[in-house]
């Protein structure tokens, strides 16, 4: 994975936005795992919404910097933490 990698959502998830947050329910072999439900805070929800199957990682970092008025290192760390935690619900297309 590098800055040119493209992220997309796995189809194996049911999502629900609640306020500025998200509830993500993983679905494996068509069975939902309600004991492994993910929740996303405002930053995580923003990242999730920027993942559209076309944007490169570098673009999402740029959007994070603009949205939260933060520095590049913090934005990169936030995105890498997100990818590490949410890896099972993401598809990463390598450059």
């Amino acid at each position, binding site marked *: 994975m590098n800055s040119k990698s493209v992220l997309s959502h796995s189809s194996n998830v*049911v999502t*629900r936005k*609640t*306020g500025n*947050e998200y*509830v993500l329910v993983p679905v494996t072999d068509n*069975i*939902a795992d*309600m*004991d492994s439900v993910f929740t996303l805070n405002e930053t995580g929800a923003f990242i999730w919404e920027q993942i559209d199957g076309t944007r490169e990682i570098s673009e999402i970092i740029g959007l994070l910097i603009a949205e939260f008025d933060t520095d590049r290192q913090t934005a990169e760390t936030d995105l890498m933490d997100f990818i590490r935690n949410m890896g099972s619900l993401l598809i990463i297309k390598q450059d």
Partner: protein
Amino acid sequence: MKSYSLDIAGYNIAIQSAEDGPDLVPAPRFASSICPATASDLLISVHEGHFPLPISATRVFHAPLVEELDGIRSTMDDNFWSVFRSGEDLFIETSLPFSDEGNRTLLKFSLNNLQWDLWIESGSATVDPLEYPLDSLILYYLTTINGDIMIHASGVNHSGKGYIFSGISGTGKSTMAKIWGMSGSRVIHDDRLVIKNISGKYTMFNTPVYENDSPRKSEVNRIFLIGHGQKNRLEPVQGARAVSLVLANCIQHNWNREIIARLVGAVSMMCSSLPVAKLDFKPDREIIDLVLYYE
């Protein structure tokens, strides 16, 4: 009798014996739920005998028979009941573990049609069409179709306020119901509730589990996610975290994305309307004071 209607969790469920079908003898726990036949929310036609699953039916979900004794859960049967799908039609095949004959039954139903058929292989002229687990399964899919919530929880009404205490087995649901009941609160149920959004107000209903379980309901004002603790402790939870915690206690089969999405949506809306809190408690009356303090 050949037909009767039940008021369960506010649903009017009409049950009728099909032509040449068996006499219907509901268990005593349903006696107080029998109601006049009005416009029914669900009609179940009961047949005696074997109905073969379509060849095209595929199994989408199955559940083991689990028994719990002194807090230890044991799987008694890996294939207690199963859900099959064939096109738009759904089927539940189950045994009846508490029936003397251990009858096999098949329920043919649909998420889009509220006229269902039930076949019971009993060899008897009389059957109870809602013997466990049929009652729970039918009620579960009825709540799902209506966008309602079935949850592991006890519920009480204290001075006009409704409190739900939700948790999985062993977290203290029935203990909590007993503490509030002994203090004069009206106990809606001590183990399982159906929650409905009725014109913007959330209402909890009991379901017939025990003998003479008459229909009871209450508005819901607060939801507590309970657990045993060394001391009483209340922690409000909000947003997505509240939704995820409540979801984990909902009764769910989870094999269909549409069903999952409906449940997540219903719980999300409920958690945005009602206060939710985690509540660790010691089993004594002090917990009532803590809850009422936050009220």
